């Protein structure tokens, strides 16, 4: 950078124009087991009748349990042409118009109202503070671009979603410094762990710009306690950094009362210098099970951030067709209330099914109360409580049991033997089959 480079006029044609460091780096993280398991699934996917011995995908956090509710709603309320808004075909004209990075007002209002509903009205959301992005992935990356400069760091509690390695670091040049959590206190963030992470960064001469948490947590499948949130906010104020809360699973908490959003904490604070450091990421991919739609948002209490994010969202806008399609659905409070309630119920049931099923085979899970997955402890099966040991076991589970689950090490968990198991992206029957395979595996192991 800035150094004189000798670029001779080359007469020979053996020089291929090189690519950038970003292009050739592996910071996209797609070589990790997290993604490798997906490949195995793609090559041999389970199918009830066509391929009953195929790989069951339990590494993808997708919500298919409440699809029927969406389908019914869309078909009943919206016969042909509805996808363009209530006006039918003529509404298309508005659709195709220049995509304003402000997003359709009706859709932003619908999102704000939906987010309020999920939090049981305990926090208000101003539609003008909502910035739309093509998915939460883009929202997290965009926030990172805005809050941090290259070579700065974000503190992220472990274990965390493997995608963060890409979303937060790849193009932004920002580092992740982990806040280590362990099972001694159910992986909750402690003030000591926070300080320690901060100090680690300072010792390495790295400037910390913020803390990024996922609440409810992925992969733990548990909500963050209110006390912890308050501690985090205090910490952010003391160190004068940002606090980003990725609440993408907020609608998937089994009991609404057990979820505290950082928005609730901020709601009662008047001091702008405190509020301004809080930002929330949300998406419809998990709660509504519409990942393909790519609808994400950044909600910020900081005017500067909102303004910048809005302009930068030019790179990752949500199509107006999608916004129209969902605007009326999301602002239909009767429907959303019903959906949220039933979705929570079904997820809870699924969770209980899998946890009970695992318990019967002697496997314990972390006590969870949210999300599309459970955090399973197979530490007792490891001969070596090391990363290699864990990956060996993961490989066995993939190859022998044909189950694709995610190893804790790919989530940067320092305690080895934990695995994330998704349960919402399959039918109940398939879940049963998966449990059966685990049961048989455990039986076999016990015999030896």
């Amino acid at each position, binding site marked *: 950078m800035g150094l004189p480079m000798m670029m001779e006029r080359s007469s020979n044609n053996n020089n291929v124009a090189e690519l950038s460091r970003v292009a050739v780096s592996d910071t996209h993280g797609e070589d990790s087991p997290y993604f490798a398991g997906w490949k195995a699934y793609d090559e041999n996917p389970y199918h009830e009748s066509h391929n009953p011995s195929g790989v069951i995908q339990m590494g993808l956090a997708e919500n298919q349990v409440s699809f029927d509710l969406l389908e019914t709603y869309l078909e009943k309320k919206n016969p042909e042409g509805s996808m363009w808004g209530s006006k039918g075909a003529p509404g298309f004209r508005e659709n195709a*118009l220049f995509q304003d990075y402000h997003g359709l007002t009706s859709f932003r209002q619908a999102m704000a109202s939906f987010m309020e509903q999920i939090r049981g009205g305990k926090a208000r959301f101003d539609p003008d503070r909502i910035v739309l992005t093509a998915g939460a992935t883009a929202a997290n990356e965009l926030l990172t671009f805005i809050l941090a400069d290259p070579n700065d760091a974000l503190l992220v509690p472990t274990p965390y979603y493997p995608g963060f390695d890409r979303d937060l670091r790849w193009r932004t040049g920002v580092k992740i410094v982990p806040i280590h959590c362990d099972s001694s206190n159910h992986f909750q963030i402690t003030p000591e762990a926070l300080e320690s992470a901060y100090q680690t960064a300072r010792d390495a001469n790295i400037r910390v710009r913020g803390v990024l948490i996922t609440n409810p947590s992925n992969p733990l499948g548990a909500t963050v306690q209110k006390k912890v949130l308050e501690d985090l906010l205090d910490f952010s104020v003391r160190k004068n950094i940002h606090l980003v809360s990725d609440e993408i699973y907020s609608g998937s908490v089994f009991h609404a009362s057990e979820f505290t959003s950082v928005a609730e904490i901020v709601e009662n604070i008047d001091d702008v210098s405190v509020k301004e450091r809080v930002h929330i990421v949300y998406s419809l991919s998990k709660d509504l099970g519409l990942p393909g739609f790519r609808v994400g948002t950044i909600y910020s209490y900081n005017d500067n951030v909102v303004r910048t994010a809005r302009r930068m969202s030019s790179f990752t806008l949500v199509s107006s067709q999608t916004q129209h399609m969902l605007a009326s659905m999301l602002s239909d409070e009767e429907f959303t209330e019903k959906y949220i309630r039933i979705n929570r119920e079904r997820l809870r049931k699924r969770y209980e099914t899998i946890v009970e099923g695992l318990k019967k085979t002697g496997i314990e899970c972390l006590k969870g109360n949210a999300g599309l997955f459970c955090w399973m402890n197979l530490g007792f099966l490891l001969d070596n409580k090391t990363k290699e040991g864990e990956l060996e076991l993961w490989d066995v589970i993939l190859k022998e049991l044909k189950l694709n689950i995610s190893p804790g090490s790919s989530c940067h968990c320092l305690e080895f033997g934990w695995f994330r198991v998704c349960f919402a992206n399959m039918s109940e029957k398939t879940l049963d089959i998966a449990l059966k395979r685990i049961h048989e595996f455990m039986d076999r192991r016990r015999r030896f």
Partner: protein
Amino acid sequence: MTRTETNRSRSSNSNSENSRDGGGGTTGMRIIVPLQGVVQGRGGLFLGSVIPCAFFYFFQFYLKRNRKNESDNSGEQNSSASTPNSVSNSGFPDPTRSQSAGHLTELTGLPRSLSRILLSPRHSGGAVSVSGRVNSVIKGGDSPYYVGQKRVEEDPYDELGNPDGVIQLGLAQNNKLSLDDWVLENPKEAISDGLSICGIASYEPSDGLMELKMVVAGFMTEATKNSVSFDPSQLVLTSGASSAIEILSFCLADSGNAFLVPTPCSPGYDRDVKWRTGVDIIHVPCRSADNFNISMVVLDRAFYQAKKRGVRIRGIIISNPSNPMGSLLSRENLYALLDFARERNIHIISNEIFAGSVHHEEDGEFVSMAEIVDTEENIDRERVHIVYDLSKDLSFPGLRSAAIYSFNESVLSASRKLTTLSPVSSPTQHLLISAISKPKFVQRFVNSNRQRLQSTYTLLVKGLKDLGIECTRSNGGFYCWADMRGLMSSYSEKGEIELWNKLLNIGKINVIPGSCCHCIEPGWFRFCFSNLSESDVPVVMNRIRKVCETCKSQN
């Protein structure tokens, strides 16, 4: 106005810097001369060079330290100020705000690294800081591009509802012939062939469904009148041309590198290429005397000037049909550009988003860069990357679907991964697949699109000519590049902005001044005619006539 304020503060700061440097220099000279007199021969030569060098370096060090202390102080000043929001809410400097806030906004004109220091208070208790990027984004909000846009949003023209509103001539928005006809004929298909939501809701490859790629490839092939056959597997779909250009910038250049961009160019490049990547743009000015064609001599000069300054050029970005002129690059020109890229071992990004909107072909045909490299060796094909945008050709701007076409497998591989951050929405993909794959519809649509662009263009150009305003010959795209130098009060950037202001506030039309397109000659304006219906043109002409009269009476 805002701009002049920032300009003024910028120049006064640089003045003081200059005087400081000048002072250091002359003192140095006074020391060297007597020294050389004292020590003769090689020793003298040695001392004569070392001492001033040492002096120079120590002086710079001293300056740097002092500058840092200054900025630390002002940083602390900012944070200790009681206003929690030390950057104004509206993004415009507000003269009524507290002194420290005023100080901060003044300084947004300074180089990025300095402002980054200023934005980061050294102690807690102050407003939390954001990244250096934020500054350039917010500063950009003062440009005519955004100001005009805002005015249109606040007071949009409507033939019946708001006949005195601001007419949008700034943006490429092709909304006259939309999919309405098709949708009315095929309402069921409009909802993606009755596919249940199940089929379109799950995760799909982020770089687009193969079916859609095939359709897009077909469309691109048609735009070149079948002289090139585009391979769908070399396509990466993303949510807009901005994203496509940004992705390519990330893939082809490192932070601190630069692209050569012939100007005038699209105002969007400043954002797409620079905002988040840390990559810079080096403008290569084209002149009206050359009809704004790219001069290889000027290109060469720009390349070597950059090299001398230590800036590594990674590629050149061309647009064909060009924005804002709307001209088609000739085959010779394209070959020359490829030679240029080959000799310097750099990439070419060919922005062909208006390839399907060619409306006048009498003086030449559209030739895609893909056709030029068709017969070249692999090594050269791999340096060419094409950007295409469905939205421009099909009036689907809201649907956000553009494409990168490359012959370089590594670029494709990296781009594919990057599209997770800017993918095309699934229902949109399905809609496009069903819409575009009806060949009869596509044929009809493309033809009527071209005819309409042609007639509106002709009307507009004639209207402008009647007012004494000439335009360059435009063959494709949605823009007229108009010579309004005769209407300026002074031949300068200031004169251009004044005229732009008049057009916006008196004429109530939003046009893009040449400075937004980085045109080196003031007085040129970009008119976008894709929004206009035939009946709108006389209205626009009347508005401009009013402005012309105002200008003439003032001059």
